């Protein structure tokens, strides 16, 4: 009969809430727990602590949840669409497109002359460049995917776009100064902080559209588990669902990359971690589970990146892989089976 995952969902939700508060309570300045709750619920006002909590730590924690859940979900969509356990949200060349955009702005600013350089490299110009870059690569992939019938071919085309942009980035970095390179590399580290509430609102809006598209694709994703021909025989409009799934992934992964940088690993690993607990391929269970899982894992990673009790913040991109990869290896070795 239908296996009920109610307890797992309740447990994960509680853990998520816990991680959320732990994440907020950690930082370079230690704030006592009661003041944190006071700031969150508005009982303490006009203190520095309140500003730190509401303007820095809260947006960061929310960004983390959006990033973790979003990358996990887009990874899940891609793995099912491409029938490939190695697929992640960036297989379509989304992150390379974003990297190219950012590289053009940061590294290429020298080419536009020093006058524009300072004007170009602002927070928003990087966000816009990253979105534009991933959007253009997405358009190219969509145009090709409408012509190509084979889903595997789209995967390879995405990888090819990645190679092209990587090559362009190398050429650009060869001609740029050390300072520019450093800035580009820092973007590549990924960062969950520095998002204002306004930016967060835009981020959340686009994320929500992607999320709704993903939820609408659940039924199609389930029939894709049988293979393309079976899915079609079940009345699925293959072209249309493929388009919606790719669009959802691009919106989610594209905005995440634009606002938080190319965060690796989460998108690939979270669906696999989830399948270890929720032993099913049914997307009606997997999608919410991946949402919770992704958010929890990235909150933990971010808390570690803070290095509790010190002033340093490590790059989130390194921590996700450093902490996550051994866990995935351990799980797979223990289970001796890759479930997909």
């Amino acid at each position, binding site marked *: *009969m*239908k*296996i009920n995952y109610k307890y797992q969902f309740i447990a994960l939700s509680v853990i998520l809430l816990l991680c959320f508060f732990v994440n907020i309570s950690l930082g370079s300045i230690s704030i006592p727990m009661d003041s944190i709750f006071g700031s969150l619920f508005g009982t303490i006002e006009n203190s520095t602590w309140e500003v730190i909590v509401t303007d820095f730590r809260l947006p960061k924690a929310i960004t983390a949840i959006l990033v973790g859940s979003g990358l996990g979900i887009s990874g899940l969509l891609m793995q*099912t669409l491409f*029938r490939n356990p190695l697929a992640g949200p960036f297989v379509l060349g989304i992150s390379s497109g974003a990297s190219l955009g950012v590289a053009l702005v940061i590294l290429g600013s020298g080419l536009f002359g020093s006058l524009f350089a300072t004007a170009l490299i602002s927070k928003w110009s990087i966000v816009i460049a990253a979105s534009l870059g991933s959007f253009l690569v997405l358009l190219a992939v969509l145009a090709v995917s409408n012509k190509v019938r084979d889903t595997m071919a789209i995967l390879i085309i995405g990888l090819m776009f990645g190679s092209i942009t990587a090559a362009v980035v190398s050429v650009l970095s060869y001609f740029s100064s050390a300072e520019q390179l450093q800035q580009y590399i820092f973007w590549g580290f990924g960062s969950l902080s520095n998002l204002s509430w306004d930016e967060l609102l835009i981020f959340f809006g686009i994320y929500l559209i992607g999320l709704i598209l993903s*939820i*609408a694709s*659940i*039924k199609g994703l*389930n*029939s*894709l*588990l*049988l*293979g393309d*021909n*079976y899915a*079609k*025989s*079940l*009345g*699925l*409009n293959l072209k249309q669902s493929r388009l919606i799934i790719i669009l959802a992934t691009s919106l989610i992964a594209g905005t995440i990359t634009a606002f938080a940088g190319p965060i690796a690993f989460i998108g690939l690993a979270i669906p696999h971690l989830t*399948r270890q607990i929720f*032993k*099913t*391929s*049914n997307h*009606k269970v997997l999608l919410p589970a991946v949402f919770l899982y992704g958010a929890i894992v990235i909150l933990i990673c971010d808390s570690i990146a803070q290095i509790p009790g010190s002033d340093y913040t490590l790059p989130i991109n390194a921590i996700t892989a450093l902490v996550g990869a051994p866990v995935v290896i351990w799980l797979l070795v223990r289970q001796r089976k890759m*479930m*997909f």
Partner: protein
Amino acid sequence: MKTVYRVVFVSKKSQNIILKAEQLSIGYKTKKAETVVASNINFELQQGQLIGLVGANGIGKSTLLRTLIKVQPALSGTILLDDKDLKSTSTTDLAKQLSIVLTEQLTSKNLSVYELVALGRHPYTNWIGNLTDKDISIINSSLKQVNIFDLKDKRCYELSDGQLQKVMIARALAQDTDVIVLDEPTTHLDMYHKAYILKLLQKLTKETGKTILFSSHEIDLAIQLCDTMIVMRKDDVVCGQPCQLISKGVFESLFPEDLILFDDKSGSFRIKK
């Protein structure tokens, strides 16, 4: 006063003909060239029958089935499914008329048997695929019809090839269509399970009144079990009852005659001595 005469053609037979091919030509089309695999195919399939499609390797059995289930377009000619042209049938409508069991591997075997059979209800469920009481009872009866009800909580990767084939048949049954098309359902199975699957298909046609069309290399089993057989040969496609086909000598010319011969007394092939 004028009398208007109306001429109405009524074919008595067409009432229970479910699938019909007229002057069908199948093959592959690219921008430059057209590769015809087989042409001039004509047959009429009666509702509630078990139909076997046989022929040598590479003769176009799979191409014909793929054309009949609308995975690839016909080069010319028409296919009528329930008196409607297949070309003008939408994918959503087709999903309620015709279900398939293919040779291709499942993308994911991490589904339980129940979940997989439940996917057969997709054409009828709402946008997120919630199962109604009616869906659940159809799924359960499909599982029982192929005797796999006690397997329902197993994962697909735990099943043997024979069990998996039964699960795929149950999924097609759950789709609740008039026609089920199976592409070589007996490959990878041992002799017992080959007979078991084909016997099961025969039982299903009798019990449910569904039309089941399958392709197979088990010609001797098909001769014994099928109501109708479609035989694809190099030059033509013949359709008829197995005993008629035997007396016409259709099976003798199925394969090159240097190795095996058809023995019409036993209805099977023998090695040439």
